């Protein structure tokens, strides 16, 4: 081609211009294919970024804050100090007017006047800032008209100096009022001390706590018990699923009558919602009426029927047994698919060479099954590690937290204690563990999993 190009001959071959044009077209086509590719994946990537990756990063961010949904001053992230004008204006003016009334009645005039000046002085300082003054007026007007005030209007950022000043002021006011009431009784004592305490709520401190949640969680025995439970559950149930699943896959890896029935019965436990199967097993394990508990007692597996769900080991056993029941068939299915890709000629050749069944299994089946095996193990390990619904419905994490996994613990901290900061730190711990497990498996698997098979 190149020699042709060097000696262009319009009549015999393609001209340089033509070839260049052609190359340009190819280039353009490649370019359009590339941009089309990016265009087509864009919506999916954007969605994944927004609904999955961003929330994980956000979880980490939230875990650095003392976030409590039931506490209005901690229900959102506050990096800086802020001042709630609504709360302030609902306390300070009423406090002053109550104090005025006491002064007019002639109670402790000197001390009370001093307290009043302190509050007024701070108010003046607060209104010095033109921005604050503007918000101050709006909130005040709205309060007068009994209009509702949004958080954006009520909350103003303040600097550390002002917040310290405010803290000092409220502290002194409260102390002095206490001293006054010690000496003699005021007419509106309860109201005044209530309003004075109400001043505290106006200052919203930053709820940034850094890595404190992690420190607390990683030094709490409950977290370590949850991590241990999760690991124990994962390792034991996946090990049983692997061994039994492989045995079943090897046994049914042949042509026989009724394959369809087997396949359907394999799929049914997998297809049923985990919550439903957990509830079903809860009935079967029931200490009084559960048939499985009854049979286990008869066989001698447990001493008493009720041991299954009320003792620590019994509950863990029940949870693992249910998981093995639910997912072994699925494991067998994945491994069977792997077995079907091994050509039978290999076994025939090995048989001719005199290899027995065990040797065939070790030398042919296992090495060729390795990648299917690892993929199945990866999926199952991660599924088992993030187990939630099964345990939530079957035992609720009990008895005495003996089946509480880390996901269950995180859920409880977030939704029962409404402590989202601490709960987020636990969920980040789950995420990190899952990431580590994945990395280990992917190292073992190599790039096999995501390799572009088109390049073969």
């Amino acid at each position, binding site marked *: 081609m190149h020699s042709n190009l060097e000696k262009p001959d319009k009549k015999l071959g393609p001209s340089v211009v033509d070839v260049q044009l052609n190359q340009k077209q190819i280039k353009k086509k490649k370019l359009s294919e590339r941009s089309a*590719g990016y265009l087509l994946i864009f919506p999916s990537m954007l969605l994944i970024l927004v609904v999955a*990756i961003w929330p994980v990063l956000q979880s980490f961010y939230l875990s650095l804050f003392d976030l409590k949904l039931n506490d209005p001053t901690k229900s959102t992230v506050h990096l800086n100090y802020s001042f709630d004008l609504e709360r302030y204006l609902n306390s300070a003016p009423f406090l002053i007017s109550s104090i005025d009334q006491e002064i007019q009645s002639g109670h402790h005039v000197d001390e009370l006047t001093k307290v009043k000046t302190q509050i007024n002085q701070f108010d003046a300082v607060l209104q010095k800032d033109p921005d604050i003054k503007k918000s101050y007026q709006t909130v005040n007007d709205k309060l007068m008209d009994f209009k509702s005030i949004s958080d954006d209007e009520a909350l103003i950022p303040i600097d550390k100096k002002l917040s310290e000043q405010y803290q000092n002021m409220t502290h002194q006011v409260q102390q002095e009022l206490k001293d006054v009431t010690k000496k003699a009784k005021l007419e509106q004592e309860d109201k005044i001390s209530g309003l004075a305490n109400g001043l505290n709520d106006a200052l919203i401190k930053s709820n940034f706590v850094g890595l404190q949640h992690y420190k607390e969680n990683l030094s709490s025995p409950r977290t370590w018990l949850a991590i241990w439970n999760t690991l124990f559950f994962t390792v034991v149930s996946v090990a049983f699923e692997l061994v039994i699943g492989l045995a079943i896959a090897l046994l049914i890896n042949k042509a026989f009558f009724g394959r369809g029935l*087997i396949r359907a019965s*394999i799929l049914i436990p997998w297809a049923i919602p985990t919550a439903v199967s957990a509830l079903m097993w809860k009935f079967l394990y029931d200490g009084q009426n559960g048939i499985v508990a009854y049979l286990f007692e008869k066989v001698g597996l447990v001493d008493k029927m009720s041991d299954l769900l009320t003792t620590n080991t019994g509950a863990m056993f029940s949870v693992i047994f249910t998981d093995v029941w639910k997912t072994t068939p699925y494991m067998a299915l994945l491994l069977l698919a792997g077995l079907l890709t091994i050509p039978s000629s290999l076994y025939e050749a090995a048989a001719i060479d005199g290899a027995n069944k065990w040797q065939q299994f070790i030398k042919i089946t296992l090495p060729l099954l390795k990648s299917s095996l690892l993929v199945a193990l990866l999926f199952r390990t991660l599924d088992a590690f993030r187990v939630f619904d099964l345990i939530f419905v079957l035992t609720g994490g009990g008895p005495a937290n003996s089946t509480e996994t880390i996901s269950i613990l*995180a859920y409880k901290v977030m939704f029962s204690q409404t402590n989202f900061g601490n709960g987020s730190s636990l969920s*980040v711990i789950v995420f990190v563990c899952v990431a580590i497990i994945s990395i280990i498996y992917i190292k073992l698997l190599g790039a096999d999993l*995501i390799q572009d*098979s088109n390049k073969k």
Partner: protein
Amino acid sequence: MHKKTGPLFYVFLFVFVFVVMFPFLWMLITSIKPLTELFGDKAFTPYTSHPTLENYVSVFTKHPFLHYQWNSLVVASITTIYTVFVASFAAYAIARLKFKGKTIILGTVLAVSMFPQIATISPIYMFLKNAGLTNSYLGLIIPYTTFSLPLSIWLLVSFFRKIPFDLEEAAKIDGASMWQTYWKVILPLAGPGIFTTSILVFIGAWNEFLFSLTINTADKFKTVPVGIAMFQGQYTIPWGEISAATVVVTVPLVILVLIFQRRIVSGLTSGSVKE
């Protein structure tokens, strides 16, 4: 495929199927027992002489069970349709077009599909709460994207790759644009793969528990798994009703599985097996 199948093998098969199906059979028996036979010695008899449909009636009359099923159907269907639609473009691009960064993209998709849901729940919950989307269908459809979209992309890529390249080339030579090739050649051939993906995504969304439990707490918006789990009261557990509800939930899924078992198996095993 030349191994012999003796009678022992069929005994094994029977035992296997029996063990797998036993809980369902037992729930079926329990569901038609009258209340008095649910406790005491009668609780362990595998038959009843007084079959009754009482439990089924009370599942539908005492609990908004039909409503739970409707909620699950709406949420799972919309999730499936929209994620498979969006994913089909991405999967086509990854499987068919040449551009840089495909391995990274596919790796990201796989990694995201392994994300534990608990790791995303706090920000998603807070966002939905602030946006007023808790107790709504959209409040579940949005978080369900986290697992259904990566799953759809992953499965569709493996199905698209199986379509022979020659057909696409032929269409291109005939002057079809990329869009035409996609609509007229690839999509019809990928039909079965798209259908399989839809079944798996649908089952995944139908069975989801954690998001549904935390986001839709009002009875009006509960889905089936959460609805059934909440049947249990604080002190008593209505086992008769629960067993009837279990049967009602299981039967459609069993039918679905029996009809589409081949497709489901091909979906479950694609991506895990190298051809």
